[in-house]
């Protein structure tokens, strides 16, 4: 208790105007910023994978399995920041046992379980089943057993069985797309449904979350593909890369338009909260919202991909431009989450003052744990790549 009191007394000095006395403590910090960021990556990566299957985008074939495994690796980590931020993580199972049906948050467990079990795992299983059986038949020792177990000891690779696999993947993908929309749209609803908070309360919130999720997911897969391919000493497929960047470009335009629409709507309606929000945006949020989220995270990447589309740019330069753009997009989307979660708590619900957020380094809510949580999915991804190699040449023929 001492610790928190010392922490809070250091914030008091930074409060401007009047805030309710209970509002000095900012309740949702860095961990709750990471949660929608990671969930967004999951949904985005999955939707990208679905494009290959549903719309038959052949160019993206090399990234299909990579994006599935990326979605899975990040999905494993998605509930951890939430769990770590609870006052009583040991009681978290109550969300499953006695969920309050009117609570958006209570649905998390179910949406998550549905997405993990019914969508991602199933699709990956069907897609890898044939390969798993063939790999297992050729391998020895522990790898043989790992692959056998993952294939649930199925053995049938007859024509009709493979046909069934293909059909199943289609069905799962068709269920999967609305599920991915649900997963992240719902995360947006957690914030968008809070009428007490004018910064959050918006019908657009789930949609903005969704499109920014797709943006971040595509950018992440692009980054992973660009890093992993040279590491494997293989050539980057420029057609695939161009297509990825092209999709990234279009979704970013939608995302950008939605955000601008939200901005125009707010300033045009100019409700009671407009003064304090204007103060927030031009002050404490200026750097993270206008400079990082808007300029660095959207306008510069959009501009550079547009330049590639209009001018003939040699492949090498194109590659580095894509890479930088995707990296900036990641920074931008992370800041977007920050601006929603932390930004929404910086102003008082009395609309008369602003408080501050001070990040700590150690402790569960600190920077160190958060960095760990952001690196953990990459470790999972490495393991998944080892167990289920997603490369085209690893496919058993």
């Amino acid at each position, binding site marked *: *208790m001492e610790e*928190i*009191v010392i922490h*809070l007394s250091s914030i*008091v000095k930074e409060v401007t105007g*009047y*805030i*309710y*006395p*209970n*509002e*000095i*403590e900012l*309740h*949702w910090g860095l961990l709750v910023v990471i949660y929608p960021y990671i969930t967004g990556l999951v949904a985005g990566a999955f939707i990208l994978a679905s494009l290959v299957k549903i719309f038959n985008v052949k160019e993206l074939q090399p990234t299909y399995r990579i994006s599935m495994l990326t979605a899975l690796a990040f999905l494993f980590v998605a509930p951890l920041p*939430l769990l770590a*931020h*609870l*006052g*009583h*993580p040991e*009681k*978290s199972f*109550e*969300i499953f046992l*006695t*969920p*309050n049906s*009117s*609570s*958006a*948050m*209570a649905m*998390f467990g179910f949406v998550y379980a549905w997405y993990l079990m019914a969508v991602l795992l199933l699709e990956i299983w069907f897609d890898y089943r044939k390969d798993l059986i063939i790999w297992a038949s050729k391998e020895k020792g522990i790898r043989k057993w790992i692959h056998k177990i993952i294939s649930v000891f199925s053995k049938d690779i007859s024509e009709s069985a493979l046909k069934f696999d293909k059909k199943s993947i289609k069905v799962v993908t068709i269920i999967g797309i609305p599920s991915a929309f649900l997963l992240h749209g719902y995360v947006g609803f*957690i914030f968008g*449904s*809070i*009428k*007490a*908070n004018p910064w959050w309360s918006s019908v657009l919130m789930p949609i903005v979350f969704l499109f920014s999720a797709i943006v971040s997911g595509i950018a992440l897969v692009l980054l992973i593909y660009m890093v992993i391919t040279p590491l494997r000493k293989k050539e980057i497929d420029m057609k695939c890369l161009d297509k990825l960047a092209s999709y990234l470009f279009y979704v970013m335009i939608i995302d950008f338009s939605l955000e601008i629409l939200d901005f125009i709507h707010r300033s045009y309606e100019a409700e009671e909260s407009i003064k304090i929000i204007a103060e927030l945006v031009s002050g404490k949020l200026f750097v993270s919202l206008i400079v990082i989220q808007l300029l660095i995270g959207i306008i510069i990447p959009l501009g550079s991909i547009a330049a590639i589309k209009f001018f003939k740019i040699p492949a090498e330069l194109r590659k580095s431009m894509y890479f930088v753009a995707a990296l900036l997009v990641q920074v931008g989307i992370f800041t977007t989450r920050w601006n929603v979660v932390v930004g929404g*708590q910086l102003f*008082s*619900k*009395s*609309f*008369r003052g602003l408080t501050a957020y001070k990040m700590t380094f150690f402790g569960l809510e600190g920077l160190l744990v958060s960095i760990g949580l952001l690196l953990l999915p990459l470790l999972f991804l490495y393991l998944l790549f080892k167990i289920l190699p997603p490369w085209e040449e690893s496919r058993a023929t």
Partner: protein
Amino acid sequence: MKELKTNTENNIQRRKFIRNILFSATALFFPKFIGAESVGKIKDWVLFGDYNAKDHLWGMGINIDKCIGCGRCVNACKVENNVPKVPYYFRTWVERYRIFKEKETIVDSPNGAINGFKPQPESDGNLIRSFFVPKLCNQCDNPPCVQVCPVGATFRTEDGVVLVDKEYCIGCRYCIQGCPYGARYLDPKTLTAEKCTFCYHRIVEGLSPACVEACPTQARIFGEVKKKASPLMRFMRKHAIGVLKPSLNTEPKVFYANMDMEVR
């Protein structure tokens, strides 16, 4: 006072325990003889004793003109409910509004006004008026905090009070985000959400909340919302009444008399 409180608490627990045993034993032996309706009645009696929650609907009136900003209510609340003494946790607090002719309204509440306010000499002479506004949980009839709680740890009782079950609360703080009035905090010791309970342990014993008891000017009026003869209803008949943030449709049961438009 503290000792007395724990004693009564023990008594209540013991009584409740014995009743519960009796009730469950009866139910075990005569499951078919007790109809659903009488089961409900027995349950009420078991849970509340002589106090029947269904017969009440509690609310509070606040007479802004009468509040002198002494902060006795804030102190009484902290003592009665074991609220941390540091200035970041309040179940009730008092705000001072100063409305000027030419500059923006100034609101303050130093340490929740637990020690009252220091007089502010008005130098430039354009102060129009100044007044104090006690704040607390509005015990909404349509409470957003109850709506968002993922496990149902916070709930509205039949007599209209919003409570938190700290055995159940997982400390996700969604309710704190959902409350438009800043009436909730996370208890730094238990790491669960806390708020004003209208001193529920007192009202079921027929007493009034500690803040009401401590107020020297009777600026706070506690009582029934739906009984014509209650002091609260009389108060509401005699004054022009407003509630905080009516546009959010939370239907508060804390009613302010003669409230200025600057109050929010």
